[in-house]
């Protein structure tokens, strides 16, 4: 005797209880605190802030804890929280040339005003597992020196003075807001950059890599990569002037790309731009390359049919929260659809079988 499946509610509750237990793991091992995650898993926290589009290290760390370290799940928690927050207003554009840089490198010039600062990078570490870390995490203090607090000019400005790089004229047009308006094509550059700033790191990396390997090849130099803190200012109507409301850490990458000229543009260097919350340089560099590749139309380049040149393809598939939701929804019951397919396939097979019999008889 068949009885219809019931008890979805209890199954869900029990699943949640089990999940909570698994999240905690072995209770004989001390529990992670949010502060520990924030301080010691900082790059994971940065990715969650960047793709979650919310600068809040504590909340990002909490989300990582709750998500058992599944960063896309953590990003999802942040996005769902973020969308409920009221909007007080819009900040002034941040001035990255006033950034207090922790890291600042240029691959195009041996030395530049403001200097090359390696900063806290994995770049020249030898990737050898440090077994000592398993036993004890004590570190010696890093050497320090005083810095002059002068602003650090952008490297691309030096090229600009010679007219060797395309102009990036100032534009006060208020950009469309991806989080408040539906994404519609064609997407202009500010909208594309917004989407890329929160795009999945892996997807952006792969697209950027594909341009390096020849799919819409556009040889990029890291004109400048800088990581540091900038002030966020907001105009307060009651005061009549802008005040500092806080400080954020960001990564900015300006790529300088070869360009031999097109029907409409003279030979010159062109720009790609990446700007991401936190220390997230893989993402920022990828973003700059993808941004540059998507500019083929305005620069009069050929569309060679490379995936990265297809703005609609890139933007509609770059958001990992959308992608993972739709991908995983196929776990939901589909037996009504499947039943209708069953009926159809059976019918087609019956008829195909009958036709074969007919042929054999003839």
């Amino acid at each position, binding site marked *: 005797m068949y009885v*219809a499946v019931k008890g979805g509610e209890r199954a869900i509750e029990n699943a949640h209880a089990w999940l909570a237990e698994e999240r905690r793991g072995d209770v004989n091992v001390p529990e992670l605190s949010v502060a520990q995650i924030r301080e010691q898993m900082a790059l994971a926290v940065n990715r969650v802030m960047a793709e979650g589009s919310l600068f809040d290290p504590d909340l990002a760390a909490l989300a990582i804890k709750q998500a058992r370290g599944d960063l896309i799940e953590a990003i999802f928690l942040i996005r769902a929280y973020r969308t409920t927050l009221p909007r007080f207003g819009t900040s002034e554009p941040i001035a990255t040339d006033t950034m207090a840089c922790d890291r600042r490198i240029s691959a195009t010039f041996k030395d530049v005003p403001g200097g090359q600062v390696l900063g806290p990078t994995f770049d020249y570490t030898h990737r050898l597992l440090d077994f000592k870390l398993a036993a004890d995490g004590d570190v010696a203090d890093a050497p320090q020196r005083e810095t002059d607090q002068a602003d650090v000019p952008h490297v691309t400005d030096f090229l600009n003075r010679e007219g060797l790089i395309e102009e990036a004229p100032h534009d006060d047009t208020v950009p469309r807001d991806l989080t408040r308006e539906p994404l519609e094509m064609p997407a202009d550059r500010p909208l594309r950059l917004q989407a890329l700033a929160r795009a999945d790191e892996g997807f952006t990396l792969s697209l950027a890599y594909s341009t390096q390997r020849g799919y819409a090849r556009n040889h990029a130099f890291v004109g400048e990569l800088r990581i540091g803190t900038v002030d966020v200012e907001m105009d307060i109507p009651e005061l009549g002037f802008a005040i500092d409301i806080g400080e954020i850490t960001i990564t900015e990458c300006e790529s300088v790309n070869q360009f031999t000229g097109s029907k409409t543009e003279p030979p010159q260097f062109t720009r790609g731009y990446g700007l991401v919350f936190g220390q997230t340089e893989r993402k920022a560099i990828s973003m700059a390359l993808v941004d540059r590749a998507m500019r083929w139309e305005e620069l009069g380049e050929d569309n060679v049919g490379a995936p990265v040149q297809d703005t609609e393809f890139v933007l509609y598939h770059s958001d990992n929260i959308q992608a993972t939701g739709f991908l995983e929804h196929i776990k939901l019951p589909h037996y*009504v659809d499947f039943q209708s397919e069953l009926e159809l396939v059976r019918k087609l097979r019956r008829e195909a079988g009958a036709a074969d019999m007919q042929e054999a008889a003839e």
Partner: protein
Amino acid sequence: MTDYNFAYLDEQTKRMIRRAILKGLAVPGYQVPFASREMPMPYGWGTGGVQVSAAVMTTDDQFKVIDQGADDTTNAVSIRSFFERTAGVATTTQTAEATVIQTRHRIPERDLTEGQILVYQVPIPEPLRFLEPRESETRKMHSLEEYGLMHVKLYEDISRHGHIATSYAYPVKVEGRYVMDPSPIPKFDNPKLSDCPAIQLFGAGREQRIYALPPYTQVVSLDFEDHPFVASKADHPCGLCGAEDSYLDEVIIDDAGGRMFVCSDTDYCTARQADGFKGKDAA
């Protein structure tokens, strides 16, 4: 859950969604872009339907949620409890009592009435998507009423298989104008779309689209004169209630692959059994 507004969304967002709904009702079958929000459940799991339900819901509503026709499938349970928590709204499993019904993949068997709202969860709102993947192209095709590609696809099915090989999400034409995706309901349900006294709203969260059918809208399933549309279902009565007019799920009941057929609409089946109807497999 006092930290959130009634039915989770803030009033400005609801207002934005209501405007999209009104536009959709004014232009039946037209896909209205809307600024879909990230919801606390994954895209693809009914976020479009949830946003539409949240936007139309009032404190007096009786809310019903079905998935695959059933009130007790896990995702239906989850969405129902979401609104119980965030809106404190009364819920019901009875189609006749409900004022707002959110559904995934089915239209209830019992006829809907004036005053009811049926909210569909839609994964891919664009009926032309699998013929043309570009949104910029399909929007153009709709505005030019250029539906030749769809008819060619249906014709090719017939020439290859002898039938139109689409059994769910079967495309329809609304009031002689827009070709519309009815969401992945089995084509058995298509006739119920037309001339329906209830308001039908379609929400696609990830794809950021809302569309609508006002009451008594004419909805025609695409077909050819010599290959008319047929609403099909498994050729059996329900094993539990004996209904011959309802859409059936096929259930495998033993290791030998024995199977039985039961109503996918659990409310319909339960009500019939309560009225004394009995199928051949009923206890």
